């Protein structure tokens, strides 16, 4: 939408402008130059709305009438949006939409028809509107109309699914969607359309997050994507959605790998990718100090407090710094989390044969180490056994074949 340049009769134009400027004067006859220029821009805006008359005064009045009618339409649209929109906890949506309220109370057709008082667009639409080119009420109508289309689309999707996508999106990208999201419509549109491409059921589907297999299917069939998506029912006659589909198709054609797909589609996180790192062993000097302390008869509690790495605990056992009785006493004194990590570490050294506490108790071989661990388990600290069970079943460390 571009404004054309119209040339008016200079004399008439000046008279009209003068009249408006003078009517704007209050207790003072002085006005800043910018304000007069603003009034001129406002007049130009109104004149471009009015057409079909030769007399400039009539064009102006006609323009005012057109604008008044459009303002009413925009207000109705705004009320419809206010009743139906959901902000999904996104501050930007709420703030932007509420800002329009101020616009409708303070929009001035006489002196600022080309301005948008109170409107502060923080939430960008899928099709951003250039406020330099589209001004005043035109801008507001354009924004509200587009927002309405996006809103109707989003309202068809159950809230649970929208929030599910947004949460996953936040987790994957490591930021809070409530603060940093650009446009929810585009995000959700991409999910819905891709999901309906790989399965038949859209909108009412269980989740809109694509699984790895679905993503792979999408990628290998991307040649048919545009044509088959165009036929989907909700796309029919919707120019706005067509544009979104074109944009998505453009993105799809440029990528060849599953990883890049994750840049604009929300995919489920891969399972089994959790990494664990054990606390590294203490420095050699510290270890020597520790062994000297043991030689000088330091209490087990003090030593237990110093041992935080499973490597160190094992070294203490291996170097036989302690008698087997002392060692099992030490194991009993360890903190819960350190004990669990020690068992997990032992398990990884033993090719991950343990999957639960029972496996440890069933173990046939009897050495001092195992005895000490069993002794601790026999203490029957339920919370700790639960933690140990959970940890053993959740983490399997990779088996080294060499």
């Amino acid at each position, binding site marked *: 939408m571009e404004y054309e340049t119209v040339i008016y009769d200079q004399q008439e134009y*000046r*008279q009209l402008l*003068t*009249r408006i*400027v*003078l*009517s704007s*004067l*209050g*207790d*003072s*006859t*002085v*006005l*800043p*130059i*910018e304000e*007069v220029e603003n009034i001129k821009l406002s007049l130009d805006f109104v004149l471009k709305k009015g057409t079909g008359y030769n007399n400039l005064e009539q064009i102006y009045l006609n323009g005012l009438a057109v604008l008044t009618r459009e303002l009413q339409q925009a207000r109705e649209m705004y009320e419809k949006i206010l009743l139906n929109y959901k902000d999904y906890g996104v501050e930007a949506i709420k703030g932007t939409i509420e800002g329009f309220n101020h616009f409708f109370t303070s929009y001035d057709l006489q002196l600022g028809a080309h301005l948008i008082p109170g409107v502060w667009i923080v939430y960008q639409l899928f099709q951003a509107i250039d406020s330099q080119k589209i001004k005043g009420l035109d801008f507001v109508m354009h924004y509200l109309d587009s927002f309405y289309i996006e809103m109707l689309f989003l309202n068809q999707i159950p809230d649970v699914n929208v929030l599910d996508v947004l949460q996953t999106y936040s987790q994957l990208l490591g930021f809070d969607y409530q603060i940093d999201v650009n446009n929810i419509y585009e995000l959700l549109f991409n999910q819905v359309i891709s999901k309906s491409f790989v399965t038949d059921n859209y909108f009412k589907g269980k989740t809109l997050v694509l699984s790895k297999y679905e993503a792979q299917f999408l990628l290998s069939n991307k040649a048919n994507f545009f044509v088959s998506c165009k036929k989907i029912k909700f796309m029919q006659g919707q120019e706005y959605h067509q544009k979104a589909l074109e944009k998505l198709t453009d993105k799809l054609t440029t990528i060849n790998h599953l990883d890049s797909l994750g840049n604009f589609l929300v995919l489920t996180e891969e399972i089994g990718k959790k990494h664990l790192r054990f606390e590294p062993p203490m420095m050699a000097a510290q270890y020597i100090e520790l062994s000297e302390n043991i030689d000088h008869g330091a209490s087990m509690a003090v030593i237990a407090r110093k041992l935080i790495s499973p490597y160190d605990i094992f070294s203490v056992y291996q170097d036989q710094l302690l008698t087997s009785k002392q060692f099992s006493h030490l194991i009993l004194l360890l903190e819960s989390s350190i004990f669990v990590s020690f068992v997990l570490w032992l398990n990884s050294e033993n090719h991950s044969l343990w999957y639960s506490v029972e496996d440890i108790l069933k173990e046939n071989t009897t050495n001092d180490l195992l005895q000490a661990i069993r002794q601790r388990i026999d203490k029957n600290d339920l919370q700790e056994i639960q933690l140990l069970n959970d940890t053993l079943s959740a983490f399997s460390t990779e088996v080294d074949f060499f």
Partner: protein
Amino acid sequence: MCYLVYKEVIIVNVKKDLLLFNESDTTAVQHLKKHLATATRKMGYELSFTEVTEIYHTRNTILQENHLLDFSLNNTICLVNMLCCREKRNAKQLLDDLEQVHTIFYYLRSFENSTMSDEELINRIESVLNYYADDFEHTMGYFENHPIVLKEEEQWSMKP
């Protein structure tokens, strides 16, 4: 683009302003001369055409410096009236002093003083002038320190 409109000293006649909107500089100066004559007559002289033209051009320069437009000559006339009611001065002094108060007036107008009418601002300048006994430098200095004129301060109360 600089439009000029004048208003009658007391009656604000929008219709008349509209007619005079595109008047030339000469007409403006003549209008100004006619109205200033009444004020200066008290002091026993009348300003010449050249002198009034000088006043008019100084006013326009000050407006430009402050990025303002004044749609009336009323303010200039009021300022001259205000000066003439004070101590007697000759034409040369009057022109110099008028430039000073013009500067102060439009300086104040360029700030956020939209709640104050032109008349209120002129009254304020007068009361500060009274306090400093027509010392223009001190008056200007005062307004530079207090560019925002507040209604609550309407009663001039600077006790020495």
